[in-house]
């Protein structure tokens, strides 16, 4: 299995406050890893550090063996690190398909072409439709994002990430804010993502974590407390005490 993403000693502090302490982490092709931890543990911060929205104070981030620390967020995205946002960040006044065209335009290096070109534009548009179809979004392709149900908006976030054809995918609570009746739909979509694509999933819903992940990393106060299989995490008394809640089976209380 080839390693795609490696974090070595990644550290970030704001003044005296350490939000990421000596994080070592590796993602290889096919990995399905979940990142869990109590609120404020630094999970989203870690996604921001990997994706380039924040720069680490120390440590290295390698993608496909190349050091990407110095690259800004846009360049890291082009290099193959895709992320979704915990709270949907979509262009709400644009249509669904336009939101998916944006990453495709970047990937096809067409973003500075200032004139329509029907052959190329049609090819890009067809690809956008192909990204929407497996998510069941083709029917709403022409609708404005602001008119969509929140669950559908979460799917558009995932469609954008897929359109980037990333080497590594960071999913920041893809089911956050989605009513329980629709979270099954998100899980279905996650299960159908390309098998070889390494995914780091931040999630509060323990059901989803245990069904999706083959490896779980527990983050507490910016540091990795434990790493293991879902079964090992569930069996670990310390984690149950710290994270899974007083009643011992977490999901509901979180």
């Amino acid at each position: 299995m080839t390693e795609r993403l490696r974090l070595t000693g990644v550290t970030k502090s704001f003044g005296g406050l350490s939000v990421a302490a000596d994080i070592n982490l590796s993602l290889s092709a096919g990995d399905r890893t979940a990142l869990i931890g109590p609120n404020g543990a630094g999970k989203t911060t870690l996604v921001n550090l990997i994706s380039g929205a924040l720069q680490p104070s120390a440590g290295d981030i390698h993608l496909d063996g190349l050091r990407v620390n110095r690259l800004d967020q846009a360049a890291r995205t082009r290099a193959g690190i895709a992320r979704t946002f915990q709270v949907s960040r979509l262009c709400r006044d644009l249509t669904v398909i336009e939101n998916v065209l944006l990453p495709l335009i970047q990937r096809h290096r067409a973003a500075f072409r200032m004139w329509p070109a029907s052959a190329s534009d049609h090819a890009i548009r067809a690809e956008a439709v192909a990204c929407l179809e497996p998510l069941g979004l083709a029917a709403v392709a022409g609708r404005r994002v602001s008119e969509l149900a929140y669950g559908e908006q979460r799917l558009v976030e995932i469609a954008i990430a897929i359109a980037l054809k990333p080497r590594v995918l960071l999913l920041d609570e893809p089911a956050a804010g989605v009513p329980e009746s629709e979270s099954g739909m998100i899980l279905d979509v996650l299960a159908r993502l390309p098998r070889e694509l390494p995914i780091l999933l931040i999630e509060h819903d323990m059901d989803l974590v245990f069904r999706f992940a083959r490896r779980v990393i527990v983050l507490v106060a910016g540091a990795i407390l434990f790493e293991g299989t879902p079964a090992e995490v569930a069996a670990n008394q310390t984690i149950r005490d710290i994270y899974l809640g007083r009643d011992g089976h977490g999901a509901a209380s979180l």
Partner: protein
Amino acid sequence: MADLTAVQPPLARTRWLGPELAVVVAGVTAALLFPDDLGFITRINILAIFTLSLALVIGQAGIATLGQAAMFGAGSYSAALWAIHITPEPLSGVLIGALVGASVAAASGVLMLRTRGLTLLMLSVAVAQVLLETANKAGSVTGGDDGLADIPVSPILGVFAFDFRGQVGFGYTLAALVLVYFCLRRVVASPFGLTCRGIRADQVRMRAVGAPVFRHLLSVYTLGGAVAGIAGALSAQTTQVVGLNSLGFELSAEGLVMLTIGGVGHLAGALLGVPAFMIIRHVAASINPYHWLLVIGLLLIVTILFLPQGLYGLPEKGRAMVRRRPK
């Protein structure tokens, strides 16, 4: 496969020339109905080009600016100096105006466009004020407070000499307006145009799809500067004078007001807002030369409160009201 044609632009067919044709028809009709007001109509054409540049920069890319006159004035002065010192041939003058407008935008954009919101707005005002003061002090070149007058203009393409009644000036500026509109409509429908709208909506999102946001902003601002420079050059050539007011804050602000009245989000907003503003101001000022600004102010308030899409959104708004009524 979903129906590709059901989806709105961008990346849609723009071969349809209807909007450009509408501009020609409207312009020619106005000229035929009011043959004595060709100077006024020519001014509308020029300001429409200027406001199109704002529709691109503000409406598409969301760059908050109150300094677009910097590029208009730069285009105006450079076309005038070109005509006086190099050649009175007008088309090369327009090209010079576009180049200088683009250069001013690119140079100031490098400094401005890393900021956003109020800071950006203030910097845009500052750039125009610095240029204004420079033009004021460099009197030996720019004529200072007096400006430049009697700018020579030779016949367009060696055939159409500028006439006293302003027919050639009218046709010249209308042709320029249609050409600029034609080009900008295609820019808006291009991948570049969609990327600009994405940046207007959410810069963080655009970075997360790999977009070099700053380079995009600089490109669109430079393009807008070229268009404003063209408007300035046309102004210098048709009026044959250039003054400090071509760099003034008032022009920048008026452009924004005209765009707001017409509708910020669409190029057509510029084409609707400019004549509406100019005609209302003309009528109001002829009724009461002291309080016409009050009418414009009220119009602006009504537009912002009741027509957020401007005149461009009027048909849609009307349809919505008709639909609501039967209930």
